[in-house]
């Protein structure tokens, strides 16, 4: 297999401005199939903006990116979801008044087909599809380890479970790339530890993971490679240990912690 074939997501020279602020400038990076790729940087570095660009929520101003060998430019979020990029949000965005199960079932939307006709007639095909959706959603709830009853409204789940539910919902779209925006934020040590195990299982199942995280320990223990953003620029990239010793990174981000 050639090197290019190995790359799942390839950004080159990506830039995004908000008025006078360059939230991303000339960011190039490639994420290989099957790796856990960390994205770190101080607050306001542009990490979430990068997520929003590759998931189609923002349109980039410069550069291009290819996913799975296909270039995407000015694409709607649902097109990128269809292509195989799924994400979670930094400030949890679940469907609050829907049950945990329904949240995950919505994730199956783009891999299923029943329309109005199927809904009204509930023919054999529609019933089988609906059964499969429910089964898959239940499996995923177990998979990410949600212990609460599946009928619990998303807004009534604990904080940690809400984060897991977002992951389950994203996995329901059968992604090739799972992009997680600070999944461990607000979790205690035990929860973070089990999240780490979950992410390793997900990677082992063949899904590539892109991870934004502030928890340095988690990044070091989990990621194959890490990129560091600062003021919208990529200032370092490499294996975690190497990045940790990079003086530019220490200056920008890790600061006293790493010294």
């Amino acid at each position, binding site marked *: 297999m050639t090197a290019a074939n190995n790359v799942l997501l390839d950004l080159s020279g990506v830039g995004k401005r908000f008025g006078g602020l360059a939230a991303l400038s000339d960011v190039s990076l490639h994420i290989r199939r099957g790796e856990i790729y960390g994205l770190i940087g101080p607050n306001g570095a542009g990490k979430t903006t990068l997520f929003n660009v590759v998931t189609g929520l923002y349109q980039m101003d410069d550069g291009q990116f290819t996913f799975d060998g296909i270039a995407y430019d000015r694409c709607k979020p649902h097109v990128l979801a269809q292509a195989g990029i799924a994400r979670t949000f930094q400030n949890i965005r679940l469907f609050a008044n829907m049950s945990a199960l329904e949240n995950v079932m919505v994730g199956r939307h*783009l891999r299923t087909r029943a329309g109005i006709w199927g809904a009204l007639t509930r023919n054999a095909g529609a019933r089988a599809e609906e059964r499969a959706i429910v089964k898959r959603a239940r499996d995923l709830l177990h998979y990410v380890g949600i212990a609460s009853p599946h009928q619990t409204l998303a807004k009534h789940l604990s904080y940690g479970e809400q984060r897991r539910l977002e992951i389950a919902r994203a996995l329901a779209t059968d992604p090739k790339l799972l992009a997680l925006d600070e999944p461990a934020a607000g979790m205690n040590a035990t929860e973070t530890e089990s999240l780490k195990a979950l992410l390793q299982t997900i990677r082992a199942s063949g899904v590539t993971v892109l991870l934004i995280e502030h928890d340095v320990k988690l990044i070091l223990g989990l990621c194959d490679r890490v990129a560091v953003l600062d003021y919208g620029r990529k200032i370092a990239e490499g294996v975690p240990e190497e990045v940790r010793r990079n003086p530019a990174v220490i200056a920008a981000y890790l600061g006293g912690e790493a010294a």
Partner: protein
Amino acid sequence: MRNVPDSLLRHDKRHAWIAFAALAIMLLALPFATDALLGRGWVRIVDFALLYIMLALGLNIVVGYAGLLDLGYIAFFAVGAYCYALLGSPQFGLHWPFWIVLPLGALLACVFGVLLGAPTLKLRGDYLAIVTLGFGEIIRIFLNNLNAPVNITNGPQGISMIDPVRIGGFSLGSTHELFGLTFPSVHLYYYLFLCVTLLVIFVSLRLEDSRIGRAWMAIREDEVAAEAMGINTRNIKLLAFAMGATFGGAAGGLFAGFQGFISPESFGLTESVMIVCMVVLGGMGNIRGVVLGGVLLVLLPEALRHGAGPAQHALFGKTLIDPESLRMLLFGLALIVVMLVRPAGLWPSTQRRRELSPDEDVVHQEQDTVYDSSK
């Protein structure tokens, strides 16, 4: 649907059947009972209540499921009604059969739904409400003014002598003798409207618990997240507008046939607001709540109109407040009270109540598929 112990299930089922049978008999006997107890005028009011329930259920798809606040919904009712009236009245001398005109009106309303939906797709909340409100008014003003240079709608005078609903050779506009009973026209319309309302309820229930229904609710809950999960929000929103408008158009056709006369006056902003209130007051997104909202908002004002005058005479010896203004006053008051005391509506969605009764949890964990009962 749920795996509860067998004996309990059978018990539950028997109760459900008894309740169902009782409800069916009640609904079948309702026009006769109303006629005998309250008079023929009230049967007419009940018919109108059914029309409004159809409208409220249609709007519930747009507002309750998809979360798109549409303040011009009555426009689709108008489109359906005028379509029926123009093709079945002396206006153009056309008398197309009911079977063609009604679906045509619904279809036309559906087209208008998409026409309204398309430019408003990017708008949210208040902005959408204002644009749809404008749309409703534009339709009404058009109907008011399309009498010159070519007279199409007959302007403010409206269209009269509209053909009654005729199924085969059976006209609902006149009294019939069936099974030894006398069915006046209002009774016949009652049964027709009841059938259509039940159909609309059936369609709503099926949609609610489907892939499309979930997509609507996802958009209502968080449009950005819905998009990121792969929902084509443009298409799914247009579908909600189209479905809602179709119901509105069908109800409009029935209205025109029932009433025999329509004018732009019946399709004002007040009517749109009334329907929104039915949906919100009853319990957004919950079909039972919406039906309850429709019944209350049609029947209570009527009861007030008939009751307030005599009551004031008995108390004060004269009419202090004109019943019509009293009606609006109490209406506003009721809305405020409901919003304060029961913000989720009088009959909120089952899910919220389910959430409040933890003893059902075990049942849900054991529930294997949503289609257990159909196996």
